[in-house]
């Protein structure tokens, strides 16, 4: 089971990790700064396998890859949003952070709920038994995901 960290619409990369914490490439340091001002309780309490459930346009703003890295390094298993900002979407796919698009989930869960997220089937199951299916990704993007990110994808000769 995954614990839900629920956030709202239009969470910007400045809120995921403020710019002044980006002066490192150390994943653990970035993890400590994940949502440091937006959800100061996050970095200390997140457990491996937790999920972030967001509203519309998650990750808007800067192109900083530090944002998905901070989330990934914090132990979160996936981000499930009603929609994603474009650059964040690419960055997450590229580094292998699972991102799932599901319009209805945000309205159906509360912060702290326990849910089951099956990354292989894209099925999300709530404690009360309700299930949600995430929207499929484009085939090309799925190939990058299956390769384990853009670096192995490129190394496999696709570029």
């Amino acid at each position, binding site marked *: 089971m995954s614990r839900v960290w629920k956030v709202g619409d239009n969470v910007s990369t400045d809120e995921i990790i403020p710019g002044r914490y980006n002066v490192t490439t150390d994943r653990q340091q970035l993890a400590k700064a994940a949502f440091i001002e937006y959800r100061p309780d996050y970095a200390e309490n997140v457990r491996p396998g937790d999920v972030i459930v967001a509203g*519309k346009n998650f990750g808007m*703003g800067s192109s900083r890859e*530090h944002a998905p890295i901070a989330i990934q390094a914090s132990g979160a298993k996936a981000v499930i949003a009603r929609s994603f900002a474009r650059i964040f979407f*690419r960055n997450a796919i590229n580094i292998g952070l699972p991102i799932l698009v599901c319009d209805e989930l945000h309205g159906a869960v509360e912060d702290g709920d326990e849910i089951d997220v099956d990354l292989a089937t894209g099925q999300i199951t709530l404690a009360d038994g309700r299930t949600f299916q995430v929207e499929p990704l484009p085939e090309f993007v799925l190939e990058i995901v299956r390769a384990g990110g853009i670096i192995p994808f*490129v190394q496999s000769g696709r570029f």
Partner: protein
Amino acid sequence: MGTLSEEILSRKVGRQVRAGEIVIVPVDYVLAHDQTAPLAIESFRKIGRPLFDPNRTVIVFDHIIPAATVQAATLQKMIREWVREQGITNFLQEGICHQVMVERGFVTPGAVIVGADSHTCTYGALGAFGTGMGSTDIAVALATGKTWLRVPETIRFEVKGELGHHVYAKDLALAMVGTIGVDGATYMAVEYGGPAVRRMSISERMTLANMAVEMGGKTGLVEPDDTVDEYLRGRARDPYERITPRDPVYSRVVEIDASSIEPMVAVPPDPEHLAPAAEMRKVKIDQVFIGTCTNGRLDDIEIAARILKGRKIHPSTRMVVTPASTRVALEAMARGYIQTLIEAGAVVTNTGCGPCIGRHQGVLAAGERAITTQNRNFPGRMGDPTAEIYLASPATAAASAITGYITDPRSLD
């Protein structure tokens, strides 16, 4: 056949492409700056291939320059060593990457340029397909000279009429974000056209295209014309052809009457919440900032200097001016604008991103309020997360510096 982005990408791919397709496209230039290059270099090393072209790689130091902390200095040292090791010829420390890319003639109509900075969309002002990406995407481009893109649908803004007195491209850009929202153009290209856009200078077009990403846009494009040719004469690094839309099909066309726009401010927490500056007089301002890739060019500094000439900034406020590039700074000095601004009480910094990103040169304390010419007002961007950031034109920012509260520049005439 197609929109400006479909036409540009079709030319690059060598066949007609359509919105919705995923294509692998050769790139003309690849950009990274001091903040995003370190992760790009790490990913580039993991890929393990040689650099695609040291002459088509551009590294610019602009985010924290000169280095403000040991951490930043350490990363910059690493980037400098990598630049030397790779034989990269375009290593620039003379202003904000997007300003420098345009000034130095890297940006030409029809070029595809990827940058590890979200405001790479600015290059559409000259009819180039510029788009921002993360560091690993940039590493792939560094290693292969290519990138993958979903050919975007396009939203077209058709701007008629004329901007009024003390109403500027920035007010129009804010009005656009306010009209379609911060995710109104997600995954899409934005095209700007109509008589009001055709009359605009390159600098003004850059202000518009810069904020395409503030609507979620992949790029923001203006059809190249004589203004672009004139700007690029003796400046363009590569030969180019004007590429224009041919029988385009737009997802949406938004008509705007420029004459209906007033001096605007975007109110926290994001650029889609707008209010007329005239209605915001109760908002006291602690810091005024003029600069950035949105509004740090010569015309922006000139507008501020004209308003501040012979006046003083209000004693309860402070003002920071950061010219977008060394060329802009030198010209602003030669014309006396810098002297005017310093005499009015402003701090004029070296060129770069300045306080826009909250690292140095004017960080905000808890509860403070800033009015700034930048493109983003997300919580925490300029310092403490409870600080409030209001976005405006250089004229509105300069007028607010004089009174100490948000001020419609027309009220000071």
